[in-house]
């Protein structure tokens, strides 16, 4: 991990890529990504280190008025953002291992996309289309997806314990606590 890594906040990393869409294929890729299943059925749910991700198309720029010299894009771009745990290389490996067909289905509509089958080329492609983060911040920077999941599960067990042990003697409470939470450290 680099010391001056602006793509990093604690254990979390930010990836922001802009991939030019092949002219004429914008509508196909829009329909494809908007038809992706959501929630647990989403392909992104198969990436265990992924906190959040968005995939959308940047086609137009909002004119601000007020004397702005208008900007226009010659291409449409498929924008992919992720907040994930750990290193980019590992994250891209997970994409290649877990969702190769889905990743190819949307990026194959982008110019010069090499596909996940050539893993090294895929990684080069993603890195070269990444725009470095100026500032990235996380609400709970030391925590991974798994540690948050574990903490939520542990809290549920504590709530159950509190309800189940109401009215017990001090000795019985201590015995039940040791039995239930000895492995919590």
């Amino acid at each position, binding site marked *: 991990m680099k010391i001056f890594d*602006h793509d990093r*906040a604690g254990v*979390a990393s*930010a990836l*922001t890529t*802009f991939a*030019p869409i*092949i*002219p004429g294929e914008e509508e196909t890729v*829009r329909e494809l990504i*908007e038809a992706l299943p959501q*929630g647990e059925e989403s392909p*992104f*749910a198969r990436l265990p280190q992924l*906190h*959040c991700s*968005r995939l*959308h198309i*940047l*086609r*137009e*720029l*909002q*004119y*601000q008025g007020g*004397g*702005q010299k208008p*900007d226009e894009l*010659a291409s449409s771009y498929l*924008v992919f*953002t992720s*907040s994930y745990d750990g290193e980019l290389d590992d994250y891209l490996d997970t994409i290649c291992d877990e969702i190769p067909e889905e990743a190819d289905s949307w990026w194959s509509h*982008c110019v*010069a996309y090499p596909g996940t089958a050539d893993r090294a080329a895929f990684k080069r492609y993603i890195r*070269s*289309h990444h725009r470095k*983060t*100026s*500032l*990235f*911040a*996380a*609400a*709970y920077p030391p*925590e991974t997806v798994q540690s*948050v999941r*574990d*903490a*939520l599960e*542990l*809290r549920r067990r*504590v709530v159950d314990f509190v309800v189940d042990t109401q009215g017990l003697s*001090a*000795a019985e*409470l*201590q015995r039940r*606590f040791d039995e239930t*939470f000895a492995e*919590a*450290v």
Partner: protein
Amino acid sequence: MTTAPAERTAAPTAPPSRNPGNVHGRMTALTLFSPVRLKWRPVQKVAFWLGKYVPLAQTHILQFDFIHYVRWTVFRDFPYDGPPQPKRDRLNYPYLFFESNFDGPWQHYIDAFAYCIPGDIRFVWGRGINFPGPPPAEPLKRWIAENSREGGTYYQAFPNTGVKEVKGALAVRDGLRRLVVESKGLSPEEFKAAYERFLHEVQHGL
């Protein structure tokens, strides 16, 4: 391709009924992409550097317990991969790409931004072209409605768990770990007192 600004006197855009591509469960991704005045860019660079390396600034950025992850990325040149891409897109201004992942619809929180941290908002976006620096909040809401990028698909690992809930669970975990360590060798009465202190300390996280 350019979209003209909507009539600025119009009411803020209501969330569309169909999935707008930036909502999953209770979570929303707000994505904005707006130009920055060239002469303001060096100041903004310093501000982002301070935001990264000054601990107080980090705390300040995340003072509201509803933002999970937030990023700012500034660039002017888009990737060029050769034909059939028509040409290299180089914009007249650097553009600020902003993405915030937070609990609930953004309309609920703009008042907090507009009235609690108006200086921060104006500092980051206020030198953008024609940006309606808060307060008041209504022009800012209209500007966000105009500039929010819609469509696509969005995923959150914990779509129905807010930041406060996550932080509460982490506090319960940390308190429980301390209790397990510190309660070793205590008498039953001493343990019960320590257990009740633990519950008192973490009650907001339960």
